[in-house]
């Protein structure tokens, strides 16, 4: 069961490990990132940053989608972590109805601000192609929300997009 797909350029960190795993009662985290899947050091640190009772697997986006199609995945409470909006669209296209929560966490801040980036919220800055991807994502999942941690306020992606 895909409890949530979350766009978070930091993948697994405090917000995910401490708050989302608890509130969604997650049993597994699926990191779907082409970059992380090919980086052994990053794979190791990502596995270390998850709570010990939550399983972690790091795959490139295509393999992650294959993994999620495994019937055994429906027995688990999973959160899929993707680093970019584009990856989220890819996952959303593969699972157009199964995702219970489409969540935008952190994006575009690690590479620093630049002229071509649009600041949507304190946590999310996107370039024009990424904004187009977000529109595509909202078409598949109109309920997409911006929310860093479960305790923080939800903002509908639709509303944010229409005000930009």
């Amino acid at each position, binding site marked *: 069961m895909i409890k949530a797909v979350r766009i978070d350029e930091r993948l697994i960190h405090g917000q995910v490990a401490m708050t989302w795993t*608890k509130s969604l009662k997650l049993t597994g985290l699926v990191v779907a990132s082409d970059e992380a899947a090919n980086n052994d050091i990053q794979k190791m640190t990502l596995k270390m940053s998850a709570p010990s009772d939550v399983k972690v697997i790091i795959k490139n986006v295509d393999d992650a989608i294959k993994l999620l199609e495994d019937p055994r995945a429906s027995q688990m409470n999973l959160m899929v972590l993707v680093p970019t909006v584009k990856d989220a669209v890819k996952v959303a296209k593969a699972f157009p109805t199964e995702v219970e929560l489409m969540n935008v966490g952190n994006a575009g801040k690690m590479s620093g601000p630049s002229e071509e980036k649009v600041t949507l919220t304190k946590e999310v800055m996107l370039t024009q192609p990424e904004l187009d991807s977000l529109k595509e994502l909202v078409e598949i999942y109109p309920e997409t929300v911006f929310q860093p941690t479960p305790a923080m306020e939800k903002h509908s992606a639709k509303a944010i997009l229409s005000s930009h």
Partner: protein
Amino acid sequence: MYDAFVVALAVFVGVAGHEMFGMSMLSRPIVVAPLAGLLMGDIQTGLIIGASLEAIFMGVVNIGISSTAEPALAAGLATAFAIKMGGNVDAVIPIVFPLAVLGLQLLNMIFSFVCGPMATNFLKLAKEGDEKGIVKLHYVIWFVHYGLYALIPFFAVLFGANVVMTVLDSIPPVIMNGLTVAGNLLPAVGMAMLLRMLWSKNLAVWFFFGAVVMAYFELPLIAIAAIGTIIAIVMAQRDLQLKGMQASPAQQGQATTVSGNQEEEDFFQ
């Protein structure tokens, strides 16, 4: 003046030491309040404040942006005010939560407006390859950050103690009683916040064990703490044993290259 200085010192040792030694928990009220009490010559009030506040703030853990409060400032100020009011602990408990929230905001403001702009200096030093300079600047900012923060309790005690006392004295007893009752409930809130993070089905039995031992056996807290320590040690030893038993076969498994499928099997196990 002396009081203001030592309270500022206690808060500085707490928050700065906490960061210096890698989140060593020195900024917890249970450390800061007795330290401030000791320096002010009333360690008992310090201990009582420290324990009461620790119960309230036990669940307050600041992770990235999900930060809620910085209790060291509140602990220092509460101790100073309580001692100045002749050991009146009940009166100051209700004011500590707003103080702790304010403390976090101020700490973050110093961080954003004083430490933040220093980032360019680090970049400059990095470009010059000046490693020593980076280390030095790191410690300077550490000192400035928490030194500025410690100035808040300094001035608060220097000018604020009398004001706080007058305000608290002028609150009618009816309202003060209400605040005291509310203050007594706060540890339950603190405990609840902690449990929200730590609750797990496997550990829940111990929670009820503690409640039973407390309510029916009427053991003092020290005895319960000692029993808890013994249980923790026994469990840790057993876990170590189990880990030792598991280690040998698991290592063999890892020796062969973990194929993608093996990884998936482990994930679904």
